């Protein structure tokens, strides 16, 4: 059993235990780790934005390579800083409007293609009563249609509509249960990873 001698590993190990102490109850050790990681993540955010966005995408191309088009995003960025001046803080809405408009515009055709057209095409399956797959295709179409009825807002879920909405929620709940069960293994392996770090890299028990 040879305990690690690198200080970094000791720090990492203690911070890991600080966070796990949260499972018992909120305590000063967890508060320290929490505030520490928020500070570090803040610093990390500053450094990554500078080296991965501002310098390569604005400072170098605009000031060194003279790509003058970039003056517009520079102005829109400064508009955002106008929030610090109460009298002119409304100008920041121009930059927000640009950011918003681009996002909304991009999402319309892409979600139409990916979420709707591709999915309904994949549901147009040959139904057959003499093969397993034929029955399964019927099962898929029936399931998608009833689940869709569950999201129907224009009418009370009563009568035939009520029944199919009820069957729809059955499908949805079975689907959620299956996804939940499927994810347990991935989450447990996260814990195995941390425990192996503590027992191998830190305490050196395992190898």
């Amino acid at each position, binding site marked *: 059993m040879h305990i690690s001698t690198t200080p970094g590993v000791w720090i990492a190990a203690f911070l890991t235990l600080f*966070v796990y102490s*949260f499972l018992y109850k*909120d305590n000063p050790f*967890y*508060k320290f*780790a*929490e*505030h520490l*990681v*928020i500070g*570090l*993540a*803040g610093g*990390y*955010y500053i450094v990554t934005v500078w080296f991965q966005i501002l310098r390569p995408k604005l400072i170098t191309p605009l000031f060194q390579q003279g790509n003058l088009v970039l003056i517009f995003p520079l102005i829109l960025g400064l508009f*955002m800083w106008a929030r610090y001046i109460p009298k002119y803080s409304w100008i*920041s*809405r121009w930059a*927000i409007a640009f*950011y*918003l408009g*681009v*996002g*909304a515009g*991009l*999402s*319309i*055709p892409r979600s*139409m*293609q990916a979420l*709707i*057209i*591709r999915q*309904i*095409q994949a*549901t*147009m*399956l*040959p*139904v*057959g009563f003499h093969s397993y797959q034929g029955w399964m*295709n019927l099962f898929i*179409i029936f399931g*998608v*249609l009833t689940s*869709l*009825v569950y*999201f*129907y*807002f*224009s*009418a*009370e*879920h009563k009568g035939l509509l009520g029944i199919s909405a009820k069957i729809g929620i059955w499908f*949805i709940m079975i689907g*959620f*249960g299956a*996804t*939940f069960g499927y*994810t347990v293994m991935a989450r447990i392996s996260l814990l195995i990873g941390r425990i192996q770090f503590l027992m191998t890299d830190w305490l050196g028990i395992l190898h």
Partner: protein
Amino acid sequence: MSTQIQSEEKGCLRWRITPLVVLIFLVAFCGRIWAQTPGDTLLPSPPSGVTAFDTPNDAGRNITINWELSPDDGKGRNTVMGYDILRSESREGEFVVVGSVVAGISTFQDDKVENHKGYCYKVRAKDHLSSESEVVGPVQASGEWYNTGRTVVLIFVVLFTSLVIFFVNSAKRGKKLYVRPIPGMDAVDEAVGRATEMGRPILYILGLSTISDVATIASLTILGRVAKKVAEFQSKLLVPCYDPIVMTVAQEVVKNSYLDAGRPDAYDEGNIWFLSRSQFAYAAGVNGIMLRERTATNFYLGMFYAESLVLAETGNIAGSIQIAGTDAVAQLPFFITSCDYTLIGEEFYAASAYLSREPKLLGSIKAQDWGKVGLVALIILGGFFASIHFDTFVNLFTVGH
């Protein structure tokens, strides 16, 4: 007996034929080998039917070259190992190899060309010798202004947009639109009421995405309505944010709600602040807030990732009422198990319109419902056509790259 004789005769008849057949086969077989063996100077037959054209539906600078496989590729003498594709600026000009493919492949895309410049091509079949096809071209590459492969998306977008505009306008003209009560909605009002009775703050999480994510915008509209109620009941609203732009918009929305509720002085911008831009630092921070501020109600509305269960389960430890709503299908199972009420996918999008009671916003929900009716009809029709193996209908919905 006669049958037996016949079979006898037939037998010997058959007996005489077989050696003849074997003989013919042998001669043919040797002939083939004989033709090949002495110093194979025979060239592989060249590929034919070479065509070159500007690759469609792209930004240009790309020419597609197709050809029929050489008769000696995969069949015939089956000696062809691959093909070289040669290009030149003009029919007589000097040809240069721009690419090569292995045997059995009969197409190539040359992506090192300028737009609006003529190029000529020819294809060379090669084994240890080679022979070339005739020259084809000149042909020019250019970018297209409309991607024909995406027409079906255009039709769907135009149809749905007109549905939304139609229903919003009819709602504006005062037409009464019925929308069934959604159980989660009154849970929102109850939850805010409960927080005020207990005199404990409300926590509102806008999700871990940027302002350009439509889920974040839907969540901001709900925040506006929740903030109005909070202002009326004079309870405290905490909004730790993941994205600075979402933070600024949230501050604007909440300030506006306090204004509408007639209590602009009670608005405290300090309660809407930036926490962290990294997923699990943000989760650590929010966990701390939930336990220390003893929030009565937690709202998780917007886009979420794996941290959803860390937040919701901690909220459960703190004993708060929790209402979630997201379009992140992968996280819905975890919200369903740990929150008091969860708005599933489209319910979350309908919530903002529903809570506002504004007619024109309800109009968009009607459009969504009509869209669903259309999709149901298409699926049934598609299923029917697929079952009778009439595939052209299903292929209508294939979208180009």
